[in-house]
């Protein structure tokens, strides 16, 4: 079986600051992966590099066997923060935009998802609560039929009821041919749905583990994560 994602020796600097250095990661398909690290550790940067939004990196990215920028873009769906849409834009117009830009955008998937997540096509973006807006971001991201889905902090500002609803939609939307990476600085919120976690620290990926292997050492994912950071505090 070929790897779904290969991050090969990526180094990325911004204004002479090293954000990521010699970073490597290999992922198979059919996984829900948590990307964890404290704020500012480079989680979003890594996602943007995989999606080819940040371009001036050193190293190679391969997604589903593709290495060319345009081909990779067609294999990765990254959660859009919707910042380019005005508050008066209707959900249905955002949908139309997505249909135009992404040939793999599935209308039926999207309608099913927003119905499940209680979002109306007629709502204006500005009228959505923070949690509703996050749900819309997730619905748009998951509605593309592609290989790799990247959700950047999907639970910020989402209450626990909505979180449970979103988690169900994540569990049911990923199949054996795709994988989903979710970044979070609050891992206990999502630990049960993850089968792997990737930890970023000191500008690189320091761990990539099966979640059940961590639990079999009688550690919760949160304890495991905290232990990795605590070494430095003392």
């Amino acid at each position: 079986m070929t790897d779904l994602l290969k991050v090969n020796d990526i180094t990325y600097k911004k204004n002479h600051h090293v954000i990521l250095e010699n970073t490597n990661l290999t992922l198979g398909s059919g996984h829900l992966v948590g990307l964890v690290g404290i704020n500012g550790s480079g989680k979003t940067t890594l996602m943007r590099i995989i999606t080819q939004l940040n371009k001036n990196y050193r190293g190679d990215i391969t997604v589903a066997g593709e290495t060319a920028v345009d081909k990779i873009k067609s294999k990765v769906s990254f959660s859009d923060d919707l910042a380019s849409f005005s508050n008066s834009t209707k959900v249905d117009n955002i949908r139309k935009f997505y249909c135009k830009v992404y040939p793999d955008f599935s209308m039926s998937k999207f309608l099913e998802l927003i119905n499940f997540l209680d979002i109306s096509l007629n709502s204006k973006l500005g009228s959505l609560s923070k949690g509703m807006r996050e749900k819309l971001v997730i619905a748009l991201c998951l509605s593309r039929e592609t290989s790799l889905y990247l959700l950047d902090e999907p639970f910020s500002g989402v209450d626990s009821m909505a979180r449970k609803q979103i988690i169900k939609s994540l569990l049911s939307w990923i199949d054996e041919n795709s994988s989903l990476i979710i970044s979070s600085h609050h891992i206990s919120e999502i630990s049960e749905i993850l089968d792997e976690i990737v930890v970023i620290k000191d500008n690189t990926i320091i761990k990539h583990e099966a979640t059940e292997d961590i639990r079999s050492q009688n550690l919760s994912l949160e304890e495991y994560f905290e232990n990795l950071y605590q070494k430095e505090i003392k």
Partner: protein
Amino acid sequence: MEFKDNTPIYLQIEEVINNRIISEEYKIGEKIPSVRELSLDLGVNINTVQKSLNELVDEGILITQRGRGNFVADDLKVILKIKQELVNNIINEMYDKLSNMGLSKSEIVDAVTEFLKGRKE
């Protein structure tokens, strides 16, 4: 469903399924929900659910029928074995707690006997 985060979840799922068999929510010889349905129902990763089912198949508690899904073994002995295991687990946990408090074996027996007398009346 709430799971403990510091114990492998596949083991906890096995326990959930065993309990459902004992309580006859899943009946002897009948089909249990699919991996995907269980993943949604329990709110856990599909690969983790698959691992639990594989273990239960290995233990002879579930039988996989190609293309049809997983069935509870049509064998009363298997069900009795699960029941015995669950009972052992509970007693084991109780024993550990009481012996950690410094109770001897006979004190534990006395305590349980007293308790049961109290329950009956």
